């Protein structure tokens, strides 16, 4: 999947696993739940390994300003980037 940022000219390419996480990041579903229900269900990977990789990925996307990471479910506001608690 290729993502075009609305706030700057950059483009981001995600691999298959990252795409699943991106699409599942709805601001309500915790990351460990996404890993358990989507990643481990669709890919042959141990949950701990998947979670560690996923945490690195979301931190990277967060540092790029295209994903918002929170420890609480997020109420969507108009100007916020994509969210995952």
């Amino acid at each position, binding site marked *: 999947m*290729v993502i*075009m*940022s*609305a*706030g*700057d*000219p*950059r*483009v*981001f*390419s*995600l*691999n298959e696993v*990252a795409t699943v996480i991106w699409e599942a990041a709805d601001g309500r579903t915790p990351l460990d739940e996404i890993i358990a229900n989507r990643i481990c269900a669709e890919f042959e990977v141990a949950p701990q390994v998947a979670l560690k990789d996923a945490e690195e990925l979301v931190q*990277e996307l967060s540092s*790029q300003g295209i994903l918002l990471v929170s420890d609480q479910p997020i109420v*969507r506001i*108009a*100007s*916020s*980037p*994509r969210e995952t608690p």
Partner: protein
Amino acid sequence: MASLIAGVSRSALVVEIGGIPIRLHTTDPGFLKLLEQRYVGFVSSASDVRFDFQIELAPPQTISPDEDVRVYWDSGRWSMERGDFHAEWDPAAGSGRIRQTANPYSIDSVLRILHTLLLATDGGFLVHAASAVRNGRAFLFAGLSSAGKTTIARLAPPDATLLTDEISYVRKLDDRYSAYGTPFTGELARLGENVRAPIGALYLLAKGRENKIEQIRPADAARGLLENILFFARDPKLVKLVFHAACAFTDHVPVRRLTFFPDNRVWEMIA
């Protein structure tokens, strides 16, 4: 007469990317200036344009950047929309409309989408890749985010002409593939040169401790390319065409895995 001419303000400019001239009309002189600056090097004097687009500026508060891009065909025209723009394009009439805020990234996105649609029926594509011309041949460097596209563009030697550090433009003309410079910049924030060259190779990037170029299986080449192709339309027929375009490209152009250590020695292998 001179005073009459002086009183006429220009309200359009032609932006030519990939050899395709598109005229953008706006009634806002400030936005026109912004476009001239944004696309410097790609502003054309061509009078025979392929398409005309009227740009209507919306107030800034209408932005909703959380909305995903949607591109779809409806009633004889393409609709392209995101939180910060809505565009319609009638290919048969050769014209379209864009409603957006006075934001250069919005028009950038519309142009990118438009070119993906134009190229899809022509065997070409836009790909998330840096590219540069060296010794008369273009080399593309594709990879997922953080693979090193900006790094390799930054390390390019003086005799290399940078086409882009972010989005490469690939056209198929007379069964040959050429890469064109684009104004679509990435982290390097440097516009590409508006030139074209036949493509010598596509490298799929990976960072490593040493520099090496490896052969890869055709299926991996196609997969690596497809992961990085920009295409946004929900149109099964065009998606199929893009898929076939990627496979045809990897059949005709050498595709290699380039693992590199981030210093300028990597360019000793690219020629």
